[in-house]
């Protein structure tokens, strides 16, 4: 039981960090479909930086920054170039998959183990992130302004709030969180980057945002549920269920939980101006 819970926490914490990033992005009005690409880039850059410097913490830092840069790119595409958010998100995800796969094949030494980070560090970071985001959104001035950008950018602008700049900032910070989540994938346990390492975890994190009704605590809770599903699956495999059920079917468990959760989920309101391209970029 203890092992199951610790495995659940370990598997949930990257998802939770990424989902927190999703909450920040979406509450500012930007659809966070790019989370998969952010995670994947974060995972790759973190592994490469850790390998190059021999220091996992430096790897984690660069992974986070790389995630932030992808966040800025998404903001630039959606806010400045008025690209539909879905299109920008899918484009970023496909580009991230292609680029990391290509770079991985160019540098074979990345297959070897890099320095690792203890899982507990990531769990603590996720907990800290949850408290920070929750506190910022509900108690601070910047949180109120950020939410106003996601709810009614016209009203926010007429109240003197620089909507687009705030969205850039939100998207950067969101990328830092999701990039950290991605870095956790490559720096914990395996200690190396593998092709398409995220395998859809960015989308699961986005599902957690929706299932958690766009609240930071809700999103982290949903991420924990999905983490538990993942841990259950691993435990079942080690307990020998794989001889009864095909292992591929067991691997399906977290995704099935996501699907079921989203089907059962009713209510909860998305930020009112989420994904709306507005005509003014002042």
């Amino acid at each position, binding site marked *: 039981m203890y092992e199951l819970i610790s495995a659940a926490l370990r598997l949930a914490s990257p998802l939770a960090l990424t989902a927190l990033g999703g909450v920040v992005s979406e509450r500012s009005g930007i659809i966070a479909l790019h989370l998969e690409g952010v995670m994947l880039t974060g995972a790759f850059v973190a592994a490469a930086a850790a390998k190059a410097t021999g220091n996992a913490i430096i790897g984690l830092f660069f992974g986070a920054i790389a995630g932030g840069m992808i966040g800025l790119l998404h903001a630039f595409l959606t806010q400045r170039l008025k690209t539909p958010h879905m299109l920008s998100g899918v484009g970023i995800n496909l580009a991230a998959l292609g680029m990391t796969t290509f770079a991985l094949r160019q540098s074979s030494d990345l297959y070897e183990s890099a320095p690792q980070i203890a899982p507990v560090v990531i769990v603590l970071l996720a907990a800290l992130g949850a408290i920070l985001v929750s506190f910022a959104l509900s108690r601070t001035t910047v949180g*109120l*302004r950020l939410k106003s950008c996601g709810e009614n950018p016209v009203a926010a602008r007429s109240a003197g709030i620089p909507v687009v700049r705030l969205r850039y900032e939100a998207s950067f910070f969101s990328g830092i969180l999701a990039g950290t989540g991605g870095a956790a994938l490559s720096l914990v346990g395996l200690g190396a980057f593998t092709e398409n390492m995220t395998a859809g975890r960015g989308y699961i994190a986005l599902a957690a945002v929706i299932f958690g009704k766009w609240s930071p605590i809700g999103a982290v809770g949903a991420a924990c549920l999905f983490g538990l599903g993942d841990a259950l699956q691993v435990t079942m495999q080690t307990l020998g269920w794989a001889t009864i059920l095909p292992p591929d079917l067991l691997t399906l468990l977290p995704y099935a939980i996501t699907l079921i959760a989203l089907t059962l989920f009713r209510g909860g309101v998305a930020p009112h101006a989420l994904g709306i391209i507005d005509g003014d970029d002042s």
Partner: protein
Amino acid sequence: MMPFPAIIVTMTTPEVVLRGITVAFGSNIALNAVTLSFPPGSRNAVVGENGAGKSTLMRALFGLIQPDAGDVLLGGKPQRFSSPADAIASGIGMVQQHFELIPSFTVAENIVLGAEMRRGILLDKQGAESTVRNLAEKSGLPIDPSVRVAELSIAAQQRVEILKALYRNARILILDEPTASLAPSEASELWAATRRLSVTGTTIIFVTHKLDEVMAEADFVTVLRRGEKTFSSPVSQTAPEQIASAMVGGKTGLNIPIDNKVITPGGTRLHLEKLSVNNHRGSISVVEASLTVRAGEIVGLAGVDGSGQRELIEAVVGLRRSDRGEVSLNGIDISDWSIEARRNAGIAYIPEDRHQRALVLSFSCEENMILGRQRETTFSRKSGILNKTAIQAFFADRIAAYDVRGAEIGVPVRSLSGGNQQKLVLARELSRDLSLVAVMQPTRGLDFAAAAFVHNALRRERDRGVAVLFQSLDLQEILALSDRIAVMLSGRIVAILSRQEANETLLGQLMTGVVAS
């Protein structure tokens, strides 16, 4: 009454002067050298018909648009407002018709947003709520600061908007048609609050087209007509008739040709018997309206915007359910009929908003020509496959008959001019056997030639024995086209006149309730 704190009373409000304000949208002059002044602490009404330039003038004062010529002066000093933020910084606040509120935020959060009370990086919620509570009490605008705006009535949301302006120290408060969506009791509460504010020196400027509000609530009244100031006077020295005639009188601009043909109408086509209709917000918008439109006559619905004309016509064509009373066509009660059944029974509908309701802009011209008629056996086979040859032949014939310029097969209808789009709609709707044509604002946004074409097309329908019912906010159009005129005021038909009896002054007075029929 609560005593007002001394600080508010002693704060001075500058005099507002608008000097030679001119605003043009393309070749259309919305405001032509309008000069006005609003003394400190006064209550001012700006009135006029739709399109007279009232809202444009207020938007120019609030920095939402920049005038092409002229100055805004505060206390004698010229100002340059490049955005509402500049106007707010100079003590001007505006409550627009469409509120800019965030439903999921509380009242206090909405009010302080952008100018928050804070403790370090923290939002000072208690401070904001108590400040808003104080402000609400002092200004006589009761509100619970901790409740979410989504749960508030329209009237309460309006109070939040006013408090938002007052929180930013507005000394000049602009209200754009503030009572348009308020119940009478809510309106009187609003007026009481504006009286209290003006006592403390706040200048109130409100836009309206209700004359009773002007007479009761304003110190000064200014009338705009077609972008020009036609009247300005203290209300105490003004009779309502003067305002009404300044709003509608004195012909300027386009003269629409009047056709004085004597008509001999036939039997009853459309009959409304005590029709009542609720609008989407559940309040009554048409009240026991009774009206008959006979074959071979044109009946025009006159009234200031929002008097129930739209809801009446929508109830006739089936877009809106009637709540009480009866709509009958050729003697048959059609109140419960679907839109399609009504169309098949010979009702054509030409809506006001061509782009939203009459056309699919990205479809080609010939597809739009049969839109809604595609199931007719002429245009499609039983199997549901469209008969392209027949459609194209029909299209070619109709665009020639209605002189639709630029309409070609395969060309999206978006590329046509507004006048030609309207002609295409007419060609589609009128080219079949009809009992009744219902038209909203037939020539809105059209130039003179296109407008004349549309009028002639409707007269041609009348002459072939169709009943025509139309609504227009333009009195000249009402007088030019109608054989009989029904005047609506607050959802009721208050008068039905023959064209010979009607003139602009009389209609203006009936529409605004200055005289009863």
